[in-house]
């Protein structure tokens, strides 16, 4: 394809991304240096880096940051480990049974996350099924407090994204060459040894892919936490994203919220840039 044809085909998409992603990012950068509330939206005041300093001195920001870190640290390994194990099990069945299981497993990932959250919450209402089970098992009443809200958020996070890793690993397992396994069987390797020495190395590039996107997805999770913590604001279950949202829409400090978003962008870029360089080299080599 010639250069001109390429640009003729790609230009609508390029224009959309330039106008609606690059330009807004520039705007966010500019807004982050302004003092702006809903009242002076047309004539903001320039305050330089004061928004950033305010954020770094804000204990609530650090609290939400540490919960985000905790969430990511628990949820991401769970996605990878549970997803891989269930994909191995799913690989053991075939035909219609496999299709039915796959459909069922996909369900939490496909539905609207907000609705998933509400459904999850229904289980833990005072009249909910799991509240009752909890009380039968422990003999004590289920209480809503900071720890239980945070636990609920984390369990929900695991529940609704695991299907993604299951499907990715499952698709990866389908491409595993049968000869590799046969050779190991002839050598007398046990099932666990095969998994340890053949399957896990074989899917390692998938694991890198999943880890990268999981970390970023976990870091910027919003919907479920917002819905769960909006109900009980006293439980301090904010993440960086929900705190940014609240700063913008409730406290109405648009400038400060934009500064927070910029800090998040910088944080994500630090994780992302090595990977982007890798992709760049790969794409250049592929040409």
């Amino acid at each position, binding site marked *: 394809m010639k250069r001109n044809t390429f640009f003729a085909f790609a230009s609508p*998409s390029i224009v959309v991304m330039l106008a609606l992603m690059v330009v807004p990012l520039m705007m966010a950068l500019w807004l982050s240096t302004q003092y702006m509330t809903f009242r002076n939206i047309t004539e903001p005041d320039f305050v330089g880096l004061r928004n950033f300093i305010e954020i770094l001195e804000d204990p609530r920001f650090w609290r939400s940051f540490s919960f985000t870190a905790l969430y990511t640290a628990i949820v991401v390994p769970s996605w990878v480990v549970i997803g891989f194990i269930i994909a191995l099990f799913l690989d053991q069945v075939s035909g219609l049974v496999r299709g039915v299981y796959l459909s069922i497993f996909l369900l939490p990932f496909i539905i609207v996350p907000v609705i998933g959250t509400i459904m999850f919450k229904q289980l833990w209402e005072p009249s909910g099924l799991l509240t009752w089970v909890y009380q039968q098992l422990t003999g004590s009443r289920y209480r809503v407090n900071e720890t239980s809200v945070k636990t609920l958020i984390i369990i929900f996070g695991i529940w609704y994204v695991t299907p993604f890793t299951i499907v990715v690993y499952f698709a990866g397992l389908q491409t595993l060459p049968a000869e590799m396994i046969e050779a190991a069987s002839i050598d007398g390797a046990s099932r666990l040894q095969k998994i340890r020495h053949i399957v896990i190395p074989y899917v390692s590039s998938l694991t890198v892919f999943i880890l990268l*996107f999981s970390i970023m997805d976990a870091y910027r999770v919003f919907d479920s936490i917002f819905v769960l913590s909006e109900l009980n604001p006293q439980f301090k279950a904010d993440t960086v994203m929900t705190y940014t949202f609240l700063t913008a829409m409730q406290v109405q400090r648009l400038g400060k919220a934009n500064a927070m*978003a910029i800090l998040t962008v910088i944080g994500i870029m630090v994780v992302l840039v090595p990977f982007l360089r890798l992709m760049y080299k790969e794409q250049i080599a592929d040409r």
Partner: protein
Amino acid sequence: MDKVRRPAGRVFIHTVLLLFAVYSLVPFFWTALQSFKTFKDAFSRAPILIFQPTWANYQDVWIRSLPDAGSAVGYLILAAALILTCLMLFARYIPVNPAWIYIGCLVGYGALLWAIPQLVYMQKFYSYFINTIIVTVFTILISISIGCLAGYALARYAGMAAVLILISALAFRALPRLAFVLPYFWIGSLLNLLDSHLLLVIALVAVNQPFTIWMLRSFFMEVPKDLEEAAMVDGANRLTSFLNVIVPVAWPGIISTALFTLLLAYNEFLLVRVLTQTNWTLPVAISRYTGAEDPAQLTLAAAASVSATIPIIVVILFFQKHLVRGLAAGAVKG
């Protein structure tokens, strides 16, 4: 991997899978039960599994007041929907070009959706449902048409510009929505565009574009180059050979991508929450049910959640193959 053959092992595998299926389904099961309960049953301390089901919650979510000939109107609407659906399903057996039947049915569905509030006094929830459909449909149409052109170009052009676009798209895909949404909100409030479908569609197309072009590119790369070269030798130009030769071959991939765009638009919460004040789509509307302190909202929230989930489950049942292909393409081919 080779299959486990020992009977004990097979039993173990099926037990684990079954338990995981239960784990995946419990919230759905419980919410569906709650949505059919009366207020009293839903709030009993020990969970009630057997009860007299009621449609009252669904009626409260959707309908404000019934017309005098309530059931007759209801059957009329159901019959119309049923006829349209049967027409769609059996279109290929009717000796007319199926494309016309599909277009006719879609127009029919549109007319039906328009007619319902004329016949029955519906709740606001219905207008949120319509908003969701409008926003989702336009997002898919725009996003896929410009995405196909770009995805195809990126699959066929090896220049530096293509690599740069792909890499920056990847970077945009990873950034938080809030970084883009707050400037949209600012522009929207300056231009008085907040609460409009237009702004929502534009924002959704934009934030989904990086993902769309990556995915479509991976599907277009599978199409052999000889195909369009043969068409171009026959005198077609790039665009017509693309539309007439490549698009039909890559069609399953395009459906997969459209499916993901559908899910993204249908599920979107943050953008809608920031950019609208009353013209919500379903996720924001439903989150409002739980925001209230009134416990009576619990069963309504359950009914609303089930109502909004059914269309998605229908979509999965019809398109599971495309969905799995899409998820696999995103990762395995990278």
